[in-house]
Every structure is written in C-alpha cells, then in structure tokens.
C-alpha cells in the first residue's frame, strides 16, 4: 500500500482553511484553467488573417471532417481518463471493428443487423476492459493493449483483412457526404455526442461517481459505490463512442478496412490532454476535450494548407502539446503564490 502514505503527504501542506485569493492570482488561475480557450482563439484568429483560404466554407468543412471521427472517440475516452485510468488503447480496434461490421454486414443483411452487430461488439469491448480494470484491478494500459491485439486479431481473422466498400449510392454514403450548410453531418454528430456525454458526466449520478472515483477510489467505494460498475460504465461509454466514430468514418469514406483507425489511441489522448483533462483523473470535462480536438484539427489543417511536410506537422503537434501544458502548469504555479 504505497499510495495512501503518498496521498497523505501530498496534502501535508493544505493546512490553513480557505485562504482568500488576490485578484492577480485569480487572473492567473483563470489563465491556467482556460489557457486552451485562449490558445485556440489565437490560433484561429492567426489562421483567418494569415492563411489564405482557411476561412472558406469548404475548408471549414474539411476541418470538421478532420475533427469528427477522432473527436467522437476523444469525447468518449474522456470518461476513462477522468476515472484515472490513463487511456483506452483499444479504441483503435474498436473503431475499425465497428466500421468493418457496419459495411460488411449491411452489404449482406442491411443496416439494422449491422448496427446491432456493431453494438454487440462495442458492448463486449467495453465489458471486457471494464471488468478487467474495475474488478480485477488490472492496469488499464495493458488491459486495453491486450484487447487491441485480441480485437484486431479477431477482426483480421474473420474479415480476412480485406477492404470493404458500400454501394456507390447508399443512405450511408449520402450521410457521409451530407452537409448542413458548411457543416458535415459527422460534425453535427460530434456536437450532439459532446452535449450528451457532457450531460452524462455532469448531470448524472453515474458521471458523478466517475469523477469521484478519479479523485479518490477508496472514499468512493466506502461512500457506497460499486466501483467496478463505474469503471465498466466508463469503458462502455468509450466503446460506444468509438463505435459511432467507426460509423461516421465508414459513412465518410464508404469503405472500411482493419487498418483505417491506426493512431487513433494517442491522437485522441493528445486532444483530451490539450483540452486540459488531467491524466491523474478527477479533473476535466467533455467540452474541453471537444476544444482540444478543434485545436489539433485546426492546427493540422493550417499546416497542410501551408504545405508543411508531415514531419514538421508532427513536430508542431508535439511542441504545442508541451507548450500548452507548460503554460498551464506555470500559470497554475503562479496562481498558487
């Protein structure tokens, strides 16, 4: 039992009761909590002024296209992160599985069976991850790593790994291509998911226990919570979001292949973190994650518009993650003084 002692010591200094905070510190604290808003605003402003074509309707649609699938994954994965379980690597397998199932099965038997099959797969992913982490107290990183292997392995074993495509004219395809003004349907799905999941996290007992678990697992359990179920819930939310991301992706490209979601794990995590959700658990929110996704998508979009090569794009992304969080950390520190 190493951590009780550590936790206690971490709190050793929190002695005096509520101290009134100076206004200067208030501003810094606000910066610490809202740095990402500022950063995103600045980035967009710069892009609008400095980058030709950024503000065009078409390009806005492209940004949304970038944001939608990864964003839907990220808002869901936020639950796992807030519950203090680092991340869910298996979203890579989950997105691909749901996309392949949707197209492959719908080609044969129509959409309803396809969607049901995909939901079943998502449920299995969520429950296996959740049980292993929630009840067996296994490390989430390794559990989800293993379910990634298993999931992709099964998918490739049964699908043979082939690329599947839907009929040229299909409801799915037209949904994938559909727009409301400049806003693709997929982006609307993202917004709806954000609102729903945000409400789930902040306005329900389930969401409450997820946050509470992230802050103090033992106190949450002794407060009369079946913590195992909470964790299963968090992983199920992630799994179903990943499933919907898979649908959106399949609709957009009207094709599905097991390799289509490579890299979604850390890209989603990056968005969550840039959004300001703490990987220590407890702190964070779904809208923040959306903001993080927007930030990363706009950044990538701008770099492509400037015809910056992939290498530099990665460097920029990495640098901005570090920078964003550094500002955050420094401001927080200053806020304390």
């Amino acid at each position, binding site marked *: 039992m190493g951590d009780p002692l550590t936790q206690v010591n971490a709190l050793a200094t929190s002695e005096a009761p509520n101290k009134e905070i100076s206004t200067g510190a208030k501003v810094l604290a606000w910066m610490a909590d809202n740095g990402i808003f500022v950063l995103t605003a600045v980035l967009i402003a710069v892009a609008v002024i400095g980058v030709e074509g950024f503000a065009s309707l078409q390009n806005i649609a*492209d940004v949304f296209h970038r944001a939608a699938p990864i964003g839907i994954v990220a808002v869901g994965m936020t639950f796992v992160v807030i519950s203090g379980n680092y991340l869910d690597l298996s979203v890579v397998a989950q997105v691909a599985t749901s996309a392949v199932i949707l197209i492959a099965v719908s080609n044969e038997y129509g959409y309803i069976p396809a969607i049901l099959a995909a939901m079943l797969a998502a449920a299995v992913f969520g429950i296996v991850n959740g049980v292993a982490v929630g009840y067996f107290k296994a490390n989430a990183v390794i559990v989800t790593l293993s379910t990634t292997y298993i999931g992709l392995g099964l998918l490739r074993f049964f699908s*043979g790994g082939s*690329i599947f495509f839907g009929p040229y004219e299909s409801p799915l395809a037209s949904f994938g*291509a559909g727009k409301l003004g400049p806003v693709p349907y997929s982006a609307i799905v993202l917004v709806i998911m954000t609102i729903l999941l945000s409400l789930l996290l902040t306005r329900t007992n389930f969401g409450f226990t997820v946050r509470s678990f992230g802050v103090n697992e033992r106190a949450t359990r002794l407060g009369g919570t079946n913590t195992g179920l909470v964790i299963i819930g968090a992983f199920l939310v992630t799994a179903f979001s990943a499933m919907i991301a898979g649908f959106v992706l399949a609709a957009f*490209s009207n094709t599905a292949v097991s*390799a289509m979601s490579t890299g979604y794990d850390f890209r989603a995590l990056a968005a969550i973190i840039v959004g300001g959700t703490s990987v220590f658990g407890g702190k964070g929110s779904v809208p923040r994650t959306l903001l993080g996704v927007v930030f990363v998508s706009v950044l990538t979009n701008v770099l492509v*518009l400037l015809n910056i090569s*992939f290498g530099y794009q990665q460097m920029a992304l990495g640098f901005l993650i570090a920078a964003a969080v550094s500002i955050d950390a420094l401001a927080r520190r200053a806020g304390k003084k």
Partner: protein
Amino acid sequence: MRKSRLVLAPAAMLAAAALVLTGCATEDASTGSSDSGSSDSSGDTGGDTGDDTLKVYALLPQGNDQPYGTTYLPPMQAKAAELGIELTITNSEYDGDKQASECEIAVADSETDGIILWPAIADSIRPCLEAANAAGIPVWITNADVNPEDTGLTYGYSGTDSYGQGAASAEMMCEFAGGADIGIIQINGLTGNSVASLRGAGFRETVASECPNVTILAEQPGNWNKDESQIAASEMLTAVGVENVQGMYAADDSMVAGGIAALEARGLAVEDFIITSIGNTFLGNPLVIDGKLDGTVFQSSSWDGENAVVGIYRAMTGDTSLGRDDDGSVLYMPNPKVTIDNATDPSVAPEW
C-alpha cells in the same frame, strides 16, 4: 493473496481457452499452407519428418492488416500447397527490426529450406541475407527488390518495380496532359514507408524529366487511406486554389478514390481533371470505367504471391542459383497501364 486466488479460476479458464484456440489455429495455419497435412507443425522438431515437405519462411511486412497483403496470401498459400511447401508466414508491420529478428528465427530453424523475403526496408536487409547464405538457405525476394549491391546475395526476385509504377503513372499523366501547362496535386502513401517513397520518387522524377509542363503544386500523405486522402486532397485544393489545379496523382487507388471524392464534394466535374494512380483495384477499376480515373497501373497481388512461391521453389530445387545471372531469376510483374479502353479486359481484372 486472497484476491489472486479469487481471480485464478477465470484466469485458468481464459488460459485454457487461449491454448485451445492456438491449438486449432496451428492447424488452420498449416493446413492452409500445406496439403501434406502435418497439422501439428509445432510438434515436430526433430527435422527428420520435414524432409518430404519443404519448409519455407515467408517474411512479409504486411498481411491481413492490409488489403493488398490480404489478397496476396491466398494465391501464395495455394501455390505452396500445390508444390508441397509448408509455409510459415510472418508480418513485421513494416518494422525493419522486427523483420530482422524474424529472419534470425527463420535461419535458426533447423528445418528451414528456403526464405521468401519482402523487405520492410530494403536498406536494412543485408545482414539477413548474409546470415541466410551462411546457413546455406536460399532467399527469394518478393514484391520490393533489394538494393543492387545486395542482389548477389539473393537467388532472384519476383514482383513489381515500385519506382517503375510511379514512373508509369507519370507517363500517363504526361500523355494526357499533352504538352499543356497544368498544375497537379500529389497524394503519397504512408510517410516513411518504402513503397510510398519509391512510387512518389518515380512519379516526381519522371514528370520532371518527361513533361516539365506538368507542375506538382502540393504533396501530402494520404496514408493509404481513402478518408485521410479525401481531407488532405481537399485541403491541398484550398491551399493552391482550385482554379490552378487541372490534375491529380495518388500512389494507390484507395487514395485516388478519396481525392476524387474531394473533387465531387466541391461539385467539380471530375471528368475535366487529369487523374492517374496505381493499382486498378476493386475500388479503382470502376472509377476508370466511369471515366473519372483517367489511368491507373495494374498490380496483380495473386501474380505477386504465386510467383514468390514459384521463385523460391526453383531456388530450392536448384533451377536457379545464387545471384541474378541465370535467366528466370528475375520475374517482373507485368504492370499494364489501365485506361478506359482496356479497363474491362479480363487480363487486368481487379483482384484487391
């Protein structure tokens, strides 16, 4: 330790399940690869039983995780079965170090009679070849050839010429452009992937030499993905201005499909653009027939998989020896250019 005892039961069950699974898996694998039905190849380690059937390692950088690999494997396994070869297939996911380790395993296996090698990274394959030679195991290269200086260490090569494919696609681009000054955008494969860079270079350099009137306005990776290519293409169009773009090249059909989708999403008349690609796949072929994709380069995964086995068989049976001197030690895959004129020709029927 109360907890650990509590979890042991399900754990044991899971473990059992896993072992059973691999049990049958092993059978699937070996029956899939050899009709001589030595189903528990994991069992025989003496080496004496393996004499009638030839044991060959196929060290590939992709398999069921990529569409091409998926359609490459069955013909390969069928041919192996036909020739009484027992195949062990690995997939290094384009990780050169992993493949090198798999190569060491193949060389260390006392039963190995031959190695089919699809280099993950051509530059890094030399040690593997030397080790195999030291062990007297013939190596046949497939799909992507080794560097010229290393060819002497191999028994032969069958497959495409990735650079050549890029070049062929470029030639079509030049032809269709017909001397007119046009600007195009280029969608590449996965960054850092050797096929991607070879095709890219092939196209780029051929355009530069053959038809300087065609200018590449922008390049971005599409990572072999339709969706990512569509976004990248659309963003490139925005960046350079649609009015300046008259053509597009993508390193494979999935990506060109994305590019075309990007044009359509803007309500542009795809027919007005000169578009070339590589593959002539199930995705690309219909586009050619529809007149959207002006030209693509046919690549036959079945030819590729089959001839890899044919090649190593000839090497093992002494029909061809070390080096590339004797004829038939280099089998180039015919890479016919596919346009609307021959798109329905059975000889170029899509395979993947």
